[in-house]
């Protein structure tokens, strides 16, 4: 089967969706509150940031890279937005956060392709820099978000809400980019075999930098969502995002080495990660035990994936 084809992608995503369905059924039986519409919206709001970060991570990982800086780019954008929107106006500030996210992505890509620094180390370094900058802007959590924006993000139309629309919009755009454009094909080529891609004249530098730029931009968007959700900026808000997004991507069926997988699985992986805490909380499980259960669910999801791909 063609690697990167839709059918292959869906096959890879089966284990994670199976676990989600099992958890949903178990949750619906085990907890009365889990069934409510309110909880559905709660999960969607929770999933939005992690899903959007993971979408960017998927693009980078498909091209054979990895981005550890997403969490701190997210935190940086939340700090910038919450701190400067009162003095510079909302829309200019949003624009600046998006540009900074994009810029950090470009630096990541530049470092990997031009300076020859391995992606894990390069993004570790930019992560450190982004963390320093966000601590510089906001040593303590604070700042404010316009109330209108908060209201807008919280507004619900039946099953639809703004975060959900954003996920679907970004997800489908990225899906189209990956599967219907030359750029998407190139990403799979580079992830599958970099040397072959180079020999076939694929512009590796350009494609890699673009993939990191997309990832940085999406991390900045997720930072705006997080910032609105907590209505302030926090320099340490993104600490778990790097690992969570990588986990979401990998349990969604994308290979660590690249060249295989896709968006469909990643959205499932992100949903699973956001659901686990909600699910365990509603079943009344002690947060300390949750760490252990999360680790085990991760291992089980991965074991299922390993069997499927063999």
């Amino acid at each position: 089967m063609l690697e990167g084809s839709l059918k292959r992608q869906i096959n890879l995503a089966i284990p994670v969706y199976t676990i989600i369905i099992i958890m949903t059924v178990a949750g619906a039986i085990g907890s009365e509150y889990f069934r409510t519409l309110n909880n559905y919206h709660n999960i969607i709001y929770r999933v939005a940031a992690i899903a959007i970060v993971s979408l960017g991570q998927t693009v980078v990982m498909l091209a054979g890279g990895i981005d550890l800086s997403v969490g701190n780019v997210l935190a940086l954008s939340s700090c910038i937005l919450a701190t400067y929107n009162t003095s510079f106006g909302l829309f200019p500030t949003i624009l600046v956060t998006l540009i900074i996210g994009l810029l950090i992505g470009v630096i990541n890509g530049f470092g990997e392709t031009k300076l020859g620094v391995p992606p894990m180390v390069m993004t570790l370094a930019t992560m450190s820099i982004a963390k320093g900058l966000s601590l510089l802007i906001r040593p303590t959590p604070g700042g404010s978000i316009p109330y209108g924006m908060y209201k807008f993000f919280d507004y619900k139309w039946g099953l639809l809400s703004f975060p959900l629309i954003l996920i679907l919009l970004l997800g489908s755009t990225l899906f189209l980019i990956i599967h219907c454009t030359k750029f998407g094909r190139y990403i799979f080529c580079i992830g599958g075999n970099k040397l072959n891609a180079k020999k076939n004249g694929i512009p590796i530098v350009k494609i890699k930098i673009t993939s990191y730029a997309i990832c940085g931009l999406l991390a900045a968007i997720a930072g705006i969502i997080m910032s609105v959700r907590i209505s302030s900026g926090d320099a340490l808000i993104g600490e778990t995002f790097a690992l969570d997004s990588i986990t979401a991507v990998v349990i969604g069926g994308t290979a660590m080495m690249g060249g295989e997988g896709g968006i469909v699985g990643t959205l499932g992986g992100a949903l699973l990660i956001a659901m686990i805490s909600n699910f365990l909380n509603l079943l009344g499980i002690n947060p300390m035990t949750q760490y252990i259960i999360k680790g085990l669910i991760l291992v089980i999801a991965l074991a299922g994936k390993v069997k499927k791909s063999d």
Partner: protein
Amino acid sequence: MKFFNIFKRNLIVFSIYILLIIIAIVFYGLIIRLPLSKSIAHFLDLIRQVAPLSLISLGQTLVLLVGGIDLSVGAIASLANILSANFMKGEVSLIPISVFLTLTICILIGFISGIVIVKVKMPPFLITLAMSSVIRGAYLLYTGGAPRGGIANEFRSIAREWIGSPIGNAPGIFPVAGIVWIAVFVALLFAINKTIFGVELYAVGGNPRTAWLSGFNPNKFTIGIYMLSATLAGMSGLMHSALIGGALLHVGDPYLLDSIAATCMGGTTFDGGVGGIVGTIAGVLIIQLLNAITTIMGMKETGKYIVLGLLIIAILSINHLIASSRR
């Protein structure tokens, strides 16, 4: 000429040591401007403080050399800190048994990670990540969020005492903690350079299939390396206990990224089989010096993160230049 050849072959390691010396000179000569005897005393004290980080980084280097990565070292160090304080209860007679039990548990954790990575063939990145989540849950559950116990003063002397009588500004000739980690470093260096362990380490890291065909057992060896890394992380946790004299939650967390940063600054790559522990030590000392510089200049954490990030990019791109010019 012979020296020149050694220099050429180990250009990356030499360059990181030159950088360390430059940073040290800039720090002591230009920033804080201490007289030589005081500078030496301060540097020896840095060697004392760096003990937990250098132990953990040595383990991380070994894991990276066999082509893996261990993200659970931070959690293991935190666990060792909590367990040692809990078992010791501040009493001298309980020191041996608590050290023994703590290290045994750490080795067991390394064994489990290693066996899952080798047998189920899952990416080490994610298995050790899951492991760190499990360990964190386990110690939170065990302590109930409030760690108890204490470290005996006799055990704390490992991190506090110096050998010899005070000379000049230093409380002694050399810190005991420094002797501990340098002894571990020298033992590992001996094992890598003079025994079959080193051959196997680079063979398995370079190409497990070839190593297997050459009569090594890469699976067994990889499990062993994860056990060794967990042991060193446990020792680092014990050292941290001796430094702070009690149990705290999550003390090991900052060590994780620092250990990876130190290791790759020292020239070890993520593909396995390239690099070594000598460079790692320079990386560790650079990170510790950087901590000192940013603290003294009043930049606190902010400056440390930014400078560390820029330094990593600079060093790694220089390393890349050196490596590509040789080809």
